């Protein structure tokens, strides 16, 4: 029985992987409790940015195309979802579908143009598009985006479907899924289910012929062309899929907090998702999720530390030592969290370009080698 189970695990069939993954995600409130990460806001962030990173990984991890404009789809998804709340209904299902569809369309347009080039030109093109959207959101598109204030729900929004079935209630309505409120833990569980679905799709893509094609493009695009397969449709499809994932994540951001602002589309936001993906491990299935977890967790901890916390932390040192340590560490915490992020990022790129997942596999290999060596030396002794 035990052996069978082990075999099953080793084979890593799709079903076992997804079951284990689902169990891991749904029990997050339990196993994240000891490290103090068990509250709904943070959990929701883990899960939502997890979807974003998983989607980004389909493009960057599989094809190697470095897009610097993926935050656009996050922003577009948020706007689309909030508009759906405003115009149609507070139910989240249409909002999510609508947002994914819209961001897929925009991704198709951007991808169609950008995918004509590769390498750094592709990065610059996506960056140019992202900046265009960002600037337009603050100028011409203000009727749609509501400029710097951000798009919010209002009392007098039409909400056609909701108002058709029932009279409007007093007060601002909140988002729901057929009566289930989207605040707190229920919101988290909803997002978690979406993440599991998204992860399942990503896993299927990774293990499909389509995914193989994308990996082949990454390793040698010229050879692909010489063997007679047109790479462009595959690349565009990958771009659209990852754009839709980003739109989905954007929609979920709006679901948990119905507010959309253009700062979500800034190119530093695209930089953040690149960071997460790389930190965890590009092109691996779990890596991006790991990266999201680490970055969002550290962000949460580091940005709340201030000087008095530090003083307490170093209070075991003599006074002068304490002062030195506090002045050394304080630039890295609180407001300076981005500094830590930058340093961490550089260290990873310099020493471990494959991300943490590569680090794990290296350690594993070394461990195995050591074991084999031990066995050999044992046998020679005998």
């Amino acid at each position, binding site marked *: 029985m035990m052996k069978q189970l082990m075999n099953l695990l080793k084979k890593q069939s799709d079903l076992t992987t997804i079951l284990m993954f689902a169990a891991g995600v749904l029990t997050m409130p339990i196993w994240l409790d000891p490290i103090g990460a068990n509250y709904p806001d943070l959990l929701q962030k883990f899960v939502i940015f997890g979807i974003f990173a998983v989607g980004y990984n389909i493009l960057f991890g599989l094809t*190697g195309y*470095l897009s610097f404009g993926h935050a656009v789809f996050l922003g577009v998804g948020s706007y689309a979802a909030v508009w759906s709340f405003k115009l149609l209904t507070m139910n989240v299902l249409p909002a999510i579908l609508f947002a994914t569809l819209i961001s897929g369309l925009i991704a198709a347009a951007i991808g169609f*143009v950008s995918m*004509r*080039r*590769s*390498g*750094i*030109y592709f*990065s*610059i*093109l996506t*960056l*140019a*598009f992202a*900046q*265009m959207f960002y*600037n*337009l959101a*603050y*100028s*011409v*598109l203000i009727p749609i985006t509501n400029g710097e204030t951000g798009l919010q729900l209002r009392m007098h929004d039409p909400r056609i479907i909701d108002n058709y079935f029932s009279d409007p209630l007093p007060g601002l309505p909140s988002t729901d899924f057929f009566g289930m409120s989207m605040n707190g833990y229920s919101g988290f569980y909803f997002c978690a289910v979406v993440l599991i679905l998204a992860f399942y799709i990503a896993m299927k893509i990774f293990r499909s012929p389509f995914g193989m094609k994308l990996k082949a493009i990454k390793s040698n695009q*010229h050879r692909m062309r010489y063997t007679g397969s047109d790479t462009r449709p595959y690349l565009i499809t990958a771009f659209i899929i990852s754009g839709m994932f980003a739109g989905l994540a954007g929609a979920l951001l709006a679901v948990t907090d119905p507010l959309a602002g253009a700062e979500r589309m800034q*190119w*530093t936001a695209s*930089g953040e998702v*690149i960071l997460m993906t*790389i930190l965890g491990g590009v092109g691996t299935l779990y890596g991006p999720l790991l990266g999201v977890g680490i970055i969002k967790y550290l962000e949460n901890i580091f940005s709340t530390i201030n000087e008095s916390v530090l003083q307490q932390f170093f209070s075991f040192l003599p006074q002068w030592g304490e002062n030195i340590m506090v002045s050394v560490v304080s*630039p890295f915490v609180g*407001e*300076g969290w*981005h*500094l830590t*992020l*930058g*340093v961490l*990022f*550089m260290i990873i*790129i*310099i020493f471990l*370009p494959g991300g943490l997942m590569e680090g794990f596999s290296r350690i594993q290999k070394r461990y195995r080698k050591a074991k084999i060596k031990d066995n050999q030396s044992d046998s020679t002794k005998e």
Partner: protein
Amino acid sequence: MQLLNGLDKGGAYALIALGLTLVFGTLGVVNFAHGALFLLGAFCAVTFQKILTISKKILDPSITYFDAYIEQPYLEIWFGETGLAIIDYAVPLSIIVTIPTMLLIGLAMERGLIRHFYKRTHAEQILVTFGLAIVLQEVIRHFFGANPIPTPAPDIVSGSAAVGTWIGLGENFVYPWWRLIYLAVSTAIISSVFAFLHLTTFGMVVRAGMYDRQMVAFLGINVQRKFTIIFGLAAVVAGVAGAMYAPILPPDYHMGMDFLVISFVIVVVGGMGSLRGAVAAGFLLGILQSLASMTAVSSLLPGIDQIIIYLVAVIILLTRPRGLMGRKGVMED
């Protein structure tokens, strides 16, 4: 008028893009931290001005009811009028400090980080320099705060030049002196960089290196050292561009990133690895941007001023894949 407006902006773009292209063409490194060098240059000017105006609190003799203090810079105390004049000229003088500082920073950056990334992929180069840019930007924010710091130009040039009367366009056509000076300085720097590359032996070697790095190395030239110096030079160009730009736009910690995105677009528009292309595209896009912000144009096509640069970049990249003056064989794969 708008043409002139565009020219000084274009000057800044051209200077940054020049440094970027120089580094890219010779070292083959895509440097996302170049905007941060521009930022550091601007803050060199800020720091220099701050140091000059370190003040001592002294009793204000004009108020006798209570103890009022005024701050008097030490320089004024020590040198009187001359001291005040020095403070007034802080920005132009700061260039003297900026050049060696930026040279040092550039050399340190090349030796410490960039050198180890020659053999890595472009994506990794982009990412590591992006990380460095974040770090530099946050360090600046830690020391100088998040607000823009006004750094005035010398009083004598704070007014406007009556450009209109010079060229016979009427008296209403005026233009700030400092922007004219900026234009002159950037032109001077650009021409001196070109002169350096075309008239000296060192420049010849560098140009040869841009064509075929390996061959130059085979000829027994220490390419590595040349690269380090080139990187330092690019850092100086970006730094001076930043220091001089401080009076036009009060520097704040994210100005590097703002300029970086645009100057990358410019480099790509001009053609990767083409110095002339970078300069031409810099001025071109600067002018286009200010033309697009004219009321006549923006009422016709609302929002065009915000996206014109990116729009032009997209069009050029799709119609002329190597940019305006790009060479064959640079970043083709």
